[in-house]
């Protein structure tokens, strides 16, 4: 009982030290909120399946008069223009269109050769950009329509078709998260990055406890407290409890501030608490493990920031998960940040606590395992240093 009381006092002391360091607190909250704002505003449109550019991409088009495929190509381009994707500008020759691209008067050019379809439709654009992709898509549609017209199979008339494009229905036996309107509410960029940034910074919040422990060892406070009758186990338990307390407070404040500033809904409170407990435990475990490698505050700070960034990147906190290439998407499934992010996104999309039970349990299990490893490593190093 005395040991537990001592641990609680040490945890409370670490929490107090964190709160009194206003500069550290400011950085811990200011950085993720600033990133949240910039990322949320910048990628607002990119998160919508109905994405259209605010300013349609300018496309220089060359269509020779009398070309058999011209009406079909014109029709596809007109549809793209009406849809808000592109703004068409006419050029007399391929050379003029190329010059316009090089001088950045247009984002892309589309050239219909006089000998089409024996010569391919040319798309000229900076490779790998959104305008290049949009114009390539239009060009493919135009090429098929134009080839038909040029081959005499269809006089450039649009083909009626019944193609529905919709979000995937939930798998059988599963009830997908349902919003107020009966369909899944969208998780926009602001909400995505509120969760992403909080998940990234939770490692730095929970580092506060272990940082205080390492600092205490360096300054001799640790030995002084031990001499007063506090066991190593009580000290370490207090350290980890302090880490968890800071992590929980950090997540709570982040949820409230992003709700107030950016209107982010974090979803079901019970689910949020369950997941946050698991996430905080996992982050505490990672920092506990670091104790075995970083025994000075300076090294601990550098390594923990690098590790937090790495985990955040692989877990989807920086780049949205949906643009991850296949290999990164596979790797991310083993990263605790991904479990945290998936859980928060599900809650934000309207799911209940049951939906995040697996993620929470997995995070808690990893957290407990890593804390045990960190504890053992610290014990080993303490014995090697001649401590009893």
């Amino acid at each position: 009982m005395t040991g537990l009381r001592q641990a609680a006092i040490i945890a409370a002391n670490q929490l107090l030290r964190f709160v009194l360091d206003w500069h550290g607190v400011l950085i811990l909250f200011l950085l993720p909120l600033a990133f949240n704002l910039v990322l949320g505003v910048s990628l607002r449109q990119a998160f919508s399946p109905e994405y259209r550019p605010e300013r349609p991409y300018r496309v220089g088009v060359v269509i020779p008069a009398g070309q058999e495929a011209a009406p079909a190509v014109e029709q596809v381009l007109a549809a793209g223009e009406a849809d808000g994707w592109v703004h068409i500008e006419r050029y007399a020759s391929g050379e003029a269109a190329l010059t316009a691209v090089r001088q950045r008067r247009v984002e892309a050019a589309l050239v219909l050769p006089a000998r089409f379809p024996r010569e391919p439709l040319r798309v000229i654009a900076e490779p790998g950009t959104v305008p290049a992709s949009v114009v390539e898509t239009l060009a493919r549609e135009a090429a098929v329509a134009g080839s038909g017209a040029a081959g005499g199979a269809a006089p450039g008339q649009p083909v009626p078709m019944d193609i529905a494009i919709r979000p995937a229905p939930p798998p059988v036996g599963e009830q997908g998260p349902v919003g107020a309107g009966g369909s899944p509410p969208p998780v926009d960029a602001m909400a995505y990055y509120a969760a992403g940034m909080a998940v990234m910074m939770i490692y730095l919040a929970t580092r506060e406890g272990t940082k205080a422990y390492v600092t205490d060892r360096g300054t001799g406070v640790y030995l002084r407290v031990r001499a007063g009758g506090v066991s190593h186990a009580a000290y370490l338990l207090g350290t980890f409890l302090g880490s968890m307390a800071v992590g929980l407070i950090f997540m709570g404040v982040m949820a409230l501030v992003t709700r107030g500033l950016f209107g982010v809904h974090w979803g079901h409170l019970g689910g949020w608490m369950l997941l946050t407990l698991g996430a905080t435990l996992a982050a505490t475990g990672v920092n506990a493990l670091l104790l075995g490698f970083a025994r000075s505050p300076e090294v601990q700070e550098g390594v923990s920031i690098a590790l937090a960034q790495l985990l955040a990147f692989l877990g989807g906190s920086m780049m949205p998960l949906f643009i991850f290439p296949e290999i990164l998407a596979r790797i991310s499934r083993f990263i605790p940040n991904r479990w945290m992010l998936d859980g928060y996104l599900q809650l934000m999309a309207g799911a209940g606590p049951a939906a995040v039970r697996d993620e929470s349990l997995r995070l808690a299990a990893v957290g407990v395992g890593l804390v045990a490893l960190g504890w053992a490593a610290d014990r080993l190093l303490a014995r090697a240093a001649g401590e009893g």
Partner: protein
Amino acid sequence: MEMEARPLGGGAWRRVAAIAVTTTRGTLRRPLNLLWLLIVPLFFGGVVASLFVPSGAPPRLAVVVEDQGPWVGPLLDGLSATPMDLQRLGREEALARLHQGRERVVLWVPDGFSRSVDAGVPRLEIWYGPRAEPGVEAARIRAVVAGLVTGNPAGPVPVVVEGPRPAAEPDRFPLLRTVFGFWAMFALVSLITQAAALHRERELGTLSRSLVAGATYGEVVAGHAGALFLIGLLQAAAMVGVTALAGAPWFAAGVPAIALPVGALLVAACGIALAVAGFTRTSRQINAAGSLVGTLAAMLGGAFWPLDVVPVSLQEVARLSPVYWALDGLREAFVFGGPGAAQGPAVAVLVLMGVLAGTAGIMGLRRPPA
């Protein structure tokens, strides 16, 4: 402490060079600095960035087929010929994979599809996963389905995509752009953070020792600015060298194509680092400012995503970021106007940013300590 400005003579240059070299050497000797200056940037810039570059492989499309009619074969052949990498899945597996994020888009070919083609109005469904945009797949599917109705046999669609300057390996430019964007962010963060050396000198008392030994305050600041440039240059050389060995064609458009934006960004980054040092008082403040300024400049400047997808107002704000101009200089050389003169405006803006920020920083550093 007297902070006087004197013109630099021969001895002064030697002192500046000595401060620059010893500071650089001291920085590189600390393993933790190597982690931040080389290992982390190389990991993100060299390994991770390359994963985000389109591979050139055909896009993948999962297909659920529930129709047994005669038009299914031509549909799938047509899609494969566009080209696309098709994978047939059962309905439940496809839905599960969509919700797990393992597929972006699934094409559902319902029972009765072939009859709908015969009737002249083909019926299909495209399902997409959370936050996936099925535009590319939809366009190809529409094109192939139209071909089924018009009788135009599906095959390789006669479209060729080319860069405005074919000589500069346009297909590899997205790789260069991505790696360069990551490097630019790390260069800014690292150099701003390294500017804390000035504050550390003051905290440790080595600054007053140097001043007593005859160096002027201006020489100490110039020496540190030189060290920042040297460190940035070494970091850039490592990034370019390692990724070039891995196949990145940095020199495909000539040496100036890469040297000008790198050099100009380093001038801007050194100036900004001095400015941050001038307006902060402790190493801890600089570390926080470095992460904030460097990462925000990279995000706003288009290092991580194309600016085409951000709101128009933010596209204008991007011009305030040195990363925007550095990427612009690179893009101009490889994609648009070619290396040299066409890079002039971007390089000039970066140098101007560096000079203005550096001047502000030196003025800030001249303030007496609180």
